[in-house]
């Protein structure tokens, strides 16, 4: 068993990657995911293992230098780290490495070196810096067939195979194979995007040795430090008396509110842990004079619940105004149509037309005081935040 070194991931994988298994980091373009492979290399070396690093998108020395940026000193382990240089021959430059793929645009060149290493080296962790680059150069089908073979051979010789893969828009068939049968485990690394990517997360898409845990963890990449997890903030906003505090308390495993005469004047705070996703929940006050607090909290949030009182359409103008404040930060949001149990409550569709909301904005009916609809709303928002993956 080799640990990936990624916080929480080893726990989800029952301790790490068992010998003979393959794992792919499946990275959405634009998300800083290649550090996952590097962290795994460093961790394997630190724990005394042998490592092979297949470098195809830059000069091996540059990649080795990047370890330093993360504060990982690989110098003491260089005798256990073997680099396969598949970059210098591509640009016609000489290579100092022992293992060189002389024709990096032909999969046979890779096959010869990789299979040779698999047979020659004691059980090692073999990490591909960028499988997508190999695929770009050698073709999708050819690369997939080769990977199938490498994984099979690695199983026989007790190596662990780890791949970084950027999921550019390749053919659907290729992406399906990669997410499906080709590897023993698939770790999906994605970005939270609403116009721009502003947060990153990873989760286990598949693993055939650990019980599947549907859990997404948000992370930041620190230099030095590497991958660090953090807990996201979710904002609950809405007009006065729409039921924000009730919603925060209904959703949270623990919550407190700063109130005066029964209305929130500073904020509500709660923490939710539901279906593998945990978040801190912040409720804003509804009155206009507290709007600066909404702005303050919006800047750091991942998503927004807008709570409206379904029986009180006169408040929708104010609700829309509050939405504008948070929308200007480009955050994903869900409208919660609260107080559905009261007579005269408008249906979500009536609210949509009165509010003039586009079809793609989810409106979830709820009765916060009975905890009805609150978790459904949470799931819808999480789907929006993580793009449903």
């Amino acid at each position, binding site marked *: 068993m080799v640990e990936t070194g990624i916080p929480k991931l080893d726990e989800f994988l029952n301790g790490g990657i068992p010998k003979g298994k393959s794992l792919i980091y499946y*990275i959405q*373009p*634009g*998300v*800083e995911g*290649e550090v996952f492979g590097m962290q795994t290399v460093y961790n394997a070396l630190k724990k005394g293992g042998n490592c092979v690093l297949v470098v*195809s*998108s*830059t*000069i091996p020395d*540059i*990649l080795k230098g*990047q370890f330093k940026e993360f504060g990982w000193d690989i110098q003491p382990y260089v005798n256990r780290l073997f680099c396969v240089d598949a*970059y210098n021959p*591509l*640009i016609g430059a000489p290579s100092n490495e022992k293992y060189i793929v002389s024709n990096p645009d032909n999969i046979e060149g890779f096959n010869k070196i990789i299979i040779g290493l698999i047979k020659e080296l004691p059980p090692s962790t073999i990490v591909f810096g*960028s499988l*997508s*680059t190999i695929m*770009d*150069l050698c073709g999708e089908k050819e690369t997939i067939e080769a990977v199938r073979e490498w994984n099979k051979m690695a199983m026989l010789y007790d190596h662990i195979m780890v791949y970084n893969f*950027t999921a*550019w*828009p*390749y053919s659907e068939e290729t992406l399906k194979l990669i997410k499906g049968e080709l590897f023993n485990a698939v770790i999906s690394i994605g*970005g939270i995007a609403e*116009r*721009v*990517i*502003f947060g990153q997360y990873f989760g286990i898409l598949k693993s055939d040795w650990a019980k599947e845990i549907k859990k997404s963890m948000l992370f930041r990449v620190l230099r030095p430090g590497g991958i660090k997890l953090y807990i996201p903030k979710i904002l609950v906003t809405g007009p006065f008396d729409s039921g924000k505090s009730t919603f925060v308390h209904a959703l949270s495993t623990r919550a407190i509110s700063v109130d005066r005469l029964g209305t929130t004047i500073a904020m509500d705070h709660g923490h939710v842990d539901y279906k593998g996703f945990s978040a801190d929940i912040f409720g804003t006050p509804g009155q206009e004079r507290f709007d600066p607090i909404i702005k303050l909290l919006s*800047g750091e949030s991942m998503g927004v619940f807008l709570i409206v009182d379904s029986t009180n359409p006169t408040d929708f103008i104010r609700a829309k105004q509050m939405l504008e404040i948070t929308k*200007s*930060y*480009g955050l994903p949001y869900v409208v919660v149509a609260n107080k559905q149990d009261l007579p005269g409550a408008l249906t979500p569709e009536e609210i949509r037309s009165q509010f003039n909301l586009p079809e793609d904005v989810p409106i979830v009916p709820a009765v916060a005081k009975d905890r009805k609809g609150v978790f459904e709303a949470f799931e819808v928002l999480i789907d929006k935040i993580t793009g449903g993956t």
Partner: protein
Amino acid sequence: MSDYTLGIKEIDAAIGGIRKGSNIMLIGPPMSGKEVILYYIMYYGAAKNENAVITVTTRESATNILEWFKDHKLALPLSRIGIVDCVTKTLGGAAVENENIKIASSPVDLTGIGVKISQFFEEYYMKKNIRKTQLHINSLSTILMYSNIQTVFRFLHVFTGRIKATGALGVYTIESGMHDEQSIATLKQLFDGMIEIKSENDKNFIRVVGLSPKPTPWFEYEIEGADVKIIGRK
């Protein structure tokens, strides 16, 4: 309509400005002053229109680009300037990242380039609250020297899509005469319009195609220092 302008007033007037979310190819022969035109659009966008400008450079180092502006006495508003440098590291130079410069490991490393672009986008959009961003890639020709056309197409497919979603403006330079017709035609599918440059009898001409109902006329231009001057039309 005119969410973005190029800063060359005769051309802006002829096309009536550029709609947000547009992706434009800037194509022309070597030595025709494409780079200066791109720098001109960069300066105008950042200094006059107060947009954020992200430049991916595969030809000049980021430091050289910033020096070029200094040499021409143009004060770039640095808080809105981001450069993804794909040159310095491969040349073995000292590569230090700062607020304005991010270093990609090579022009082959499209994944890394993509990450750096996204980071600048996040910085300007989320942290600095700037709503208009220009992404300039200079040049696709270098990227095409290292990666095949399908690879570059996939990369651009992702990023032209992001430009549309963010309401930004994308400008991508490419050398004419260096790639086969089919490659150019493949890439053209991703763009809304083209700024075309040609040289004839030692004279340079520029026109814009696809951003207005009819192509603009060919304008003759001259480059004086950092200035692009229209001196006539064909």
